[in-house]
């Protein structure tokens, strides 16, 4: 027994049974069945409609005839279409930039105060994100009311002119962005606050000893440490903001003179209210590029993590 050295068995020995595999196969069958409802839901109500909209976009208004890229050609000729693209891009980019900036700044303020008070402030500051946007936008609509605006009441009291919040194109564009920033900034605030808390305090102490000032600490430590979370929140928010419907629909419904339309509200107007589903589908398809870019970055990130692991 003591000298029972086992000779190299290795690969030369025939493997008698591929057993044990049956267990594994049984297990993956159960696993597949458990995920099946998810697969069915996504396939039927997300993937299929998304692909179907590609087909829909190539039909004429009554959906009887194939018109190829006719709907797109028609759109490209309309000035309003280019205006909507421009407005959507301005709307989404500026809203996301301000949401991210405000979220970053306010997260620092919350992070600065003693830990036991933070929960209370965080709770208060997240309220705009919790209220259904359709409901809070109604409040904004009322605050912007042309004759009874509570903002204008304040402005006139301090000697300024009343502002046509939703009445003039430029102000209306400003207002929809303002409301969107108000609604979305708390989300960034919460994300950045969580990220700030995950930066080890020693790094700041080490930087202070190395002679870094306040600004250098943010630039060389906070931002690099938060890079991932900033990237993912901006990406998320960009998609959601590009696709925004509620705020514009309720505040301006695209007006005045269609100057505040974004893809979603215009597609709704053309497709559902105007009864031209293919044209509406065409317009909403322009969301695909931004989705593609987002998907590219996310997949790249997942793959990179996969190879690191």
């Amino acid at each position, binding site marked *: 027994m003591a000298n029972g050295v086992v000779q190299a068995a290795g690969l030369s020995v025939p493997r008698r049974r591929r057993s044990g595999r049956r267990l594994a196969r049984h297990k993956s069958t159960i696993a597949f069945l458990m995920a099946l*409802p998810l697969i069915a839901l*996504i396939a039927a*109500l997300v993937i299929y409609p998304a692909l*179907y*909209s590609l087909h829909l976009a190539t039909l004429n208004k009554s959906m009887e005839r194939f018109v190829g890229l006719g709907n797109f050609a028609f759109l490209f000729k309309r000035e309003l279409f280019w205006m909507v693209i421009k407005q959507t891009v301005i709307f989404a980019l500026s809203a996301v930039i301000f949401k991210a900036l405000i979220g970053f700044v306010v997260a620092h303020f919350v992070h600065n105060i003693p830990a036991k008070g933070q929960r209370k402030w965080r709770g208060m500051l997240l309220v705009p994100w919790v*209220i259904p946007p359709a409901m*809070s936008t109604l409040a904004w609509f009322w605050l912007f009311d042309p004759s009874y605006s509570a903002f204008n009441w304040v402005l006139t009291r301090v000697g300024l002119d009343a502002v046509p919040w939703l009445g003039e194109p430029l102000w209306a564009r400003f207002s929809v962005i303002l409301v969107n920033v*108000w609604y979305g900034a708390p989300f960034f605030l919460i994300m950045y606050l969580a990220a700030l808390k995950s930066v080890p305090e020693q790094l700041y102490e080490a930087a202070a000893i190395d002679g870094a000032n306040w600004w250098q600490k943010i630039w060389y430590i906070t931002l690099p440490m938060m890079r991932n979370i900033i990237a993912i929140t901006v990406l998320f928010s960009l998609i959601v903001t590009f696709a925004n419907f509620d705020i514009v629909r309720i505040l301006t419904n695209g007006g005045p003179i269609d100057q505040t339309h974004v893809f979603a509200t215009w597609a709704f107007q053309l497709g559902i209210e105007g009864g031209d589903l293919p044209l509406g589908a065409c317009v909403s398809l322009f*969301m695909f590029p931004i989705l593609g870019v987002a998907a590219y970055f996310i997949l790249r990130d997942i793959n990179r993590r996969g190879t690191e692991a």
Partner: protein
Amino acid sequence: MSASLRKERRAALAWSYVFLVLFAVIFLTPPLYMFITSLKTSAEISSAKLPWWVFHPTLDNYSALLTSPAYLTFFRNSAVVCVAVVAITMAISIPAAFSLSRMRFWGSGALATGVFLTYLIPETLLFIPLFKIFAFVQDWTGIELMNHWWILIVIFPTLTVPFCTWIMIGYFASIPKELDEAALIDGAGYLQVLTRIFLPVALPGVIAATIFAFTVSWADFLYPMAFATSIDQMVLPAGIVSTLIKGDVFNWGQIMTAALLGAAPPLVIYAFLMDYYIAGLTAGATKG
């Protein structure tokens, strides 16, 4: 610590509070203004004396709304839809998350990534093709899908399931593998591992996912605007926006009351379960 450093810190702290108060005022103005307006009579609103103050508080708007059949219908429709959507979402995403995080099968890795990507496909892209698809389902089967509140029970899971699955995958993945192995050896089947070990251990995740599913389906506006348009089929947000705003005669006291009551369920849930709410919010992104 030197005196100057302490002074500097105290100044930074003071400025932080100043700005926090400022931002809190900005962030809370619309809901507060909702509340102020909801206590006013139409007469007081149109007098426009001092919009930021209530001189003659009244609960008339509340009693009017809570006895209005239309509003109560919206509320009931919303409640039923949300409870059903939460149930369906949990029934789909919990087993799926368990399967994707633990059991694996051919293509499960790709599916997990796919779930995350579908979360990113906005409803804005889907409502028009769905509109058409519902129409031809009706042609084929004779079942009228459009313009019924219950159709929302079918569609809302597309908004909730991918995200809930995603955060449940994250919570399940954080459970040590030995825990399910111990349970398997103790004699549990996969279903028992899920119900007796994973669900209790990942309870915070389940709560966070439930909150998410509820608030999302309560707040959604686009699908109800497209698919549940007649007055007895509407749900709250869409119902308030489309029925109370009529022409130029805005009854703002009632609109604000309705909006406030419409915002109340998510706010109440948030007030009591804030930590779960925030955990769910941050889990989705940090694990993404």
